[in-house]
């Protein structure tokens, strides 16, 4: 289907159920546009995001991965996003260190009331990843030649 169209990035957005997924819903009910190449996966909390999911997405051809969770201090489970924040900080830095552009990974705190922020974040993220182009690195980072 996408063969005859120009390349657009494939973006996986992990959203926590309580704030960001609701924020995404609000962006929807407010009819706020953002590109269709953003696909949302619902997780209970940002702390459920296993770094393996991000690696998997990149390896399978995602061009950018974003995690959205409750603002620090507002986590439904009180502390989940604090763990997520540390995990992602270390992971993103490691990926960067291996040559994966920092722009392909992002964490954004989006509350259930911030539909506009959700849409703006996605628009901005898609723009950044589009400028970086196709992610060829992680799909191709083979152990074997």
């Amino acid at each position, binding site marked *: *289907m*996408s063969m005859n169209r120009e390349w657009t990035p*494939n973006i*996986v957005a992990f959203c926590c159920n309580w704030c960001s*997924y*609701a924020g*995404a*819903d609000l*962006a*929807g*009910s407010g*009819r*706020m*546009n*953002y590109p*269709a*190449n953003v*696909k*949302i*996966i*619902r*997780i*209970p*909390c940002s*702390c*459920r*995001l*296993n*770094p*393996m*999911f991000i690696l*998997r*997405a990149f390896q*399978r*051809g*995602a061009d950018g991965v974003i995690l959205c969770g409750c603002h620090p201090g*507002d986590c*439904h*489970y*009180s*502390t*989940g996003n604090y*763990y997520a924040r540390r*995990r992602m900080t270390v992971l993103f830095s490691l990926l960067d260190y291996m040559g994966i552009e920092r722009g392909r990974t992002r964490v954004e705190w989006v509350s259930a009331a911030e539909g506009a922020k959700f*849409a703006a974040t996605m628009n901005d993220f898609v723009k950044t990843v589009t400028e970086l182009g196709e992610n060829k690195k992680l799909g191709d980072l083979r152990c074997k030649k």
Partner: protein
Amino acid sequence: MQKIGVFVCWCGSNIAATVDVKAVAEALKSEAGVVFSTDYQYMCSENGQAMIRQAIREHGLTGIVVCSCSPRMHEATFRKTAVSAGLNPYMVEIANIREQCSWIHKDMAEGTEKAIVLARAAVAKLHKNAPLTAGTSPVTKRALVIGGGIAGIQTALDVADAGFEVDIVEKAPTIGGRMAQLDKTFPTLDCSACILTPKMVEAAQHEKINIISYAELDSLSGFVGNFTATIRKKARYIDEDKCTGCGVCTEKCPSRKGLDDFNMKLNKRGAVYIPFAQAIPNVAVIDPEQCLKLRTGKCGLCQKVCSAKAVNFEQKDELIERQYGAIVVATGFKPIDASAFNEYAYNDSPDVVTSLEFERIMNAAGPTKGQLVRPSDREHPHEIVFIQCVGSRCTEDAEKGKPYCSKICCMYTAKHAMLVREKYPDVNVHVFYIDARTPGKNFDEFYRRAVEQYGVDYIKGMVGKVSVEGKKLHVQGSDLLNGEQVHINADMVVLATAIEPDPTARALGTMLTASMDTNDFFTEAHPKLRPVESPTAGVFLSGVAQGPKDIPETVAQAGAAAAKVIGLLCKNELTCNACVAHANEAACNGCSQCERVCPYGAISYEEREIRSPEFRGVRRIAVVNEAVCQGCGACTVTCPSAAMDLKGFTNSQIMSEVDAICR
């Protein structure tokens, strides 16, 4: 292999206008495991649900994917539909093709393509789903009310009248709260004590209510239906059971330096005191900072004069641990500190007072026995200026003050003005106001009476400065309606200070994991539809802790909170979350890392007999308490061996979604 049914909803034109629903249904037919795929105008309608039920039965479906609106909207609906057709409710997945697709995209081809991907991801996840059964947990049939003001008392009475035990924890030595300090109440002008103290007595005498005064919540664990609270009962150095409240000790105490909190520090009291005549419990308390015996070891006069032998200088803080099914936050408010507003000369003159201080001055049981006199020289004032909105309705970037309207000030200022004019017609009363806000039953009539009948001089405008000039207070303000500056030489100035949540609220919010707004008011679960529940299950909100309100509103909310508590305590057991963590014992290292990140203390360890290809013998294994686990998943990511997984959001389920999206 599962047999999956896919149901694509049009949502009228909400989805169908930007997603080719037929194409989606058609595309999904070729997905592995999909044996049935269709579309319909309104899947959530009775007809739509009937169609799903019929398909489940006819095609022997093991799971269904509904492509529709957000799961936050109708996941519960379709789970019930599945259950009624004999499926496990957790064999339902929702592809959100409305909020996250049709409503945000304009191009039909784009929307359709994305909807297909989202549906595929849901199918991929469903392939890894397993039927789940939610556990149950028992409900402790006792409520904890934090705060013994009118809000807490009313909630406690209502809950207790329904037959449940209630503990009131009050940080002051007596219950009664702010309302006990008030003189008269608007708009009826009935005496505050006369309507409050019978309620206090009723609470004290209620066989189901246990008042724990001079106490605060020390720590809390557990979850809805099963909280365990540790309450710190502060040492009052008086045996509550022995003290008769005769008051002899309070008269004999030689220390006279303590400031009387009940009278807003307008007068001094002894180191041993009873906060006010109708205090409950009517028991003395010793202020350790003022008591000579406790500070220097010399004195002990109160002990000598106490015929009940109630004085005990050895008393220590006591920790009480109790179980509760529900918790009500009724921590109330305090007026903001007026000393930040020195443009009104609050720090420079004792004759500039706050409204609550004025309330005590006007009260017959107050420091002046109800005589309206200036605090500085005890002379009768002739000119009084009231300034409204002191610290309320400030701009967000203001250095001091609150952005919100404190809601009660317009009315109590009208009350003060009216009371002064009624009792002392010789006194001129001026009120500076921004707006007179009087939306309430009989409120505007009350305000108009103050203006029209009692001749209170309302001046629309703010006061720029109050300066002390000899015995007078020079008030300089603007009159916006007449467009002129106003100068008044007043004898007293009364500041209608904003109210703010009690300072104990912030720490309490953290302890309860109940969220708060930026002003430290507790947040309700839904601002309109669930106004007395906190987002944290089992925690309810009563009174000003949730936001500024007057007495009738507080009592109404207190009753509403009680109704919610009763609804909870009526249940014998609660259904737990089915999506809980679970450790695969063959892979668990027992390394304790999951325990460290669990916010609920739901993980413990057991020595278990393990028989796996890698290990045979007894090993330390993580065990999840399913009644306590809330399903956040923090443990699953911390687990180095992926032994810990989260039901409903397993590693392989989410990986399958990722794979489907990145296909």
